[in-house]
């Protein structure tokens, strides 16, 4: 009998609908945790908008905005312990922030600073990945390390819809499944890989099912519903920690801005599509829920927006105030110790005697 993709039914997990009403069982989170999630999302959005403006002013380099994907990132990162490992792509500022990487670090990276990808000690994350899906096999290797060490740490790998086309993603899934590794592949399906729509990226009905051929369970979740993303990630984390192997989560979301500040999405994407997704804004939805639950009010909202603006101002000030770093220093980070040739070149740079 033929195995037919159309026989597969995938239903999307949703806990909060677009109006912010509970349509599923709310996860076990305290009021303080819920408010904390909301604060991350709101401040992250403000950061994103600010960095895009900084780029227009020529104060930072090329930037990949994440607006629209806050729920997918904050919800998933919230399900981790501090000691777990995160493998981000370049659009994961909110997830990294939740996991302990200050916004200032992310901004320094966007500013092209020598220390921009130097993560603080004690934060278990890789630097952001530029090569699409390059992080997937590394996350698998980290999960293999957990397996080897028996430390129960989970490796959460973020990737996008485009990355599911890369060979590394598939190789990684295969290895992780064979060895039942504690790895989670969180696909933020934001509908567009630069100009390529999801429908032309893959012939699969869903990206959640990408692991089935490898023996990996998957789930599709409303990626703009922070509670649902948190809930399913929590389940995947529990499976991973229990030694039950890897999981795939497809968080269906939308990149409201361009691919990067060098891209103009109006060339390939309709205004209507953007408008439709604005109606599903993850922050608006979560705010409605918090208002309904009497956990939030207009006064708190105004105070938060004010706080966000101030906090981001401080981040920008701190990052711009940081000494630029030197080329000389780069020679120190090629190998543990300088090779004779690097020593020679570094000395020439220092004396400005470069040929």
């Amino acid at each position, binding site marked *: 009998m033929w195995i037919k993709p159309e026989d597969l039914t995938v239903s999307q997990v949703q806990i909060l609908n677009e109006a912010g009403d509970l349509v599923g069982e709310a996860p076990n989170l305290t009021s303080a945790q819920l408010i904390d999630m909301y604060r991350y999302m709101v401040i992250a959005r403000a950061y994103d908008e600010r960095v895009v403006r900084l780029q227009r002013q020529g104060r930072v380099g090329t930037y990949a905005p994440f607006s629209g994907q806050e729920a997918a990132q904050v919800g998933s990162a919230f399900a981790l312990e501090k000691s777990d490992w995160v493998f981000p792509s370049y659009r994961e500022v909110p997830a990294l922030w939740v996991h302990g990487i200050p916004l200032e670090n992310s901004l320094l990276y966007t500013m092209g600073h020598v220390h921009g*990808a130097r993560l603080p000690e004690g934060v278990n994350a890789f630097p952001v990945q530029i090569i699409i899906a390059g992080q997937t096999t590394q996350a698998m290797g980290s999960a293999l390390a957990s397996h080897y*060490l028996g430390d129960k740490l989970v490796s959460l790998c973020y990737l996008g819809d485009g990355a599911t086309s890369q060979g590394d993603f598939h190789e990684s899934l295969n*290895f992780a499944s064979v060895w039942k590794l504690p790895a989670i592949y969180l696909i933020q399906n934001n509908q567009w890989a630069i100009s390529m729509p999801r429908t032309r990226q893959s012939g699969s009905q869903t990206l959640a099912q990408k692991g089935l051929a490898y023996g990996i369970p998957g789930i599709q979740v409303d990626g703009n519903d922070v509670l649902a993303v948190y809930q399913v990630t929590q389940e995947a984390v529990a499976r991973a920690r229990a030694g039950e192997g890897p999981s795939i989560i497809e968080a269906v979301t939308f990149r409201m801005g361009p691919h990067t500040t060098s891209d103009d999405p109006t060339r390939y994407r309709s205004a209507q599509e953007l408008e439709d997704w604005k109606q599903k804004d993850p922050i608006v939805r979560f705010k409605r829920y918090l208002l309904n639950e009497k956990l939030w009010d207009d006064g708190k909202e105004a105070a938060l927006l004010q706080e966000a603006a101030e906090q981001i101002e401080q981040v920008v000030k701190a990052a711009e105030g940081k000494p630029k770093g030197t080329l000389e220093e780069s020679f120190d980070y090629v190998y543990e110790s300088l090779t004779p040739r690097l020593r020679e070149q570094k000395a020439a740079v220092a004396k400005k005697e470069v040929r």
Partner: protein
Amino acid sequence: MAVINMIEAINQALAGELEHDERVLILGEDVGHAGGVFRATDGLQARFGERRVIDTPLAESAIIGASVGLAARGLRPVAEIQFLGFIYETMDQLASQAARMRLRTAGRIHLPMVVRSPYGGGVRTPELHSDSLEGLFLHSPGIKVVMPSSPYDAKGLLIAAIRDPDPVLFLEPMKLYRAFKEEVPEDSYTVEIGKAKVVQEGEDLTLITWGAAAPVATAAAKAWQDKHGGSIEVIDLRTIVPMDEEAIVKSVEKTGRAMIVHEAVKSGGAGAEVAAIISEKCMFSLLAPILRVTGFDTPYPAFSVEDDWLPNATRITAAIQEMLSYR
């Protein structure tokens, strides 16, 4: 001291490091139960278990990506890529990922990982198994490239590579795996990465070589001396990155003549880098042009003609004769 061949020396090095450091693990295709296609890892899984010596599914990029993840977590993976011709599958993970991690993170994450791979011609392999691709990695700062040509060096350099804090590509000339035996200490020892070896001293010509080509070049130099007299200094670089410039310069300043013998294709190879070092640093000592005897600038040919493609005694001897004709 036992007299052993290179494959036995490599096996000893791996066993010693597995024994001595719980962080060391081996992964690759067929490295466990089968002991590797050349038996480099023979018996290691039986001795150290499946946890330490891991048979992977068949995907080279994932083997290296996994090694990056393992090394970042404090382990010391020794990966095997079954033949160097397959290394292109891993180029992103090696050149863009592993090699750059220390720089990208300004020293926060470093990767103590080794990638072992057999390479080199003369053994009638199928296509795409024999290429010498060290030049690709000479051009990828952040990764070291080690290419021993003897059992003693192979053991000492492999142990040094496993203990090195940075990624090391360790290239094993498959033709030399069982070509000859020599005395190798049974205990662990290291040979410093980045130091060339003067195989024989000489006054008239410096012959710089490494890896699979080294024994061929050394034999040709000895044969020339036996027949025609003269004295040729032979330097086995042993490490391509970092390259022992000091040894090259010191020798060429003494002899005034330099030729390079390697198996890789000529254009843009490591030999071109050696020639550039000599022209930058020894120009005024030179009595003759710098010659290279290398593979030709074709893709590696079908094995029925590989002996004519590889730098062989005839071609090396002709170059020696030409070099010494300059006065």
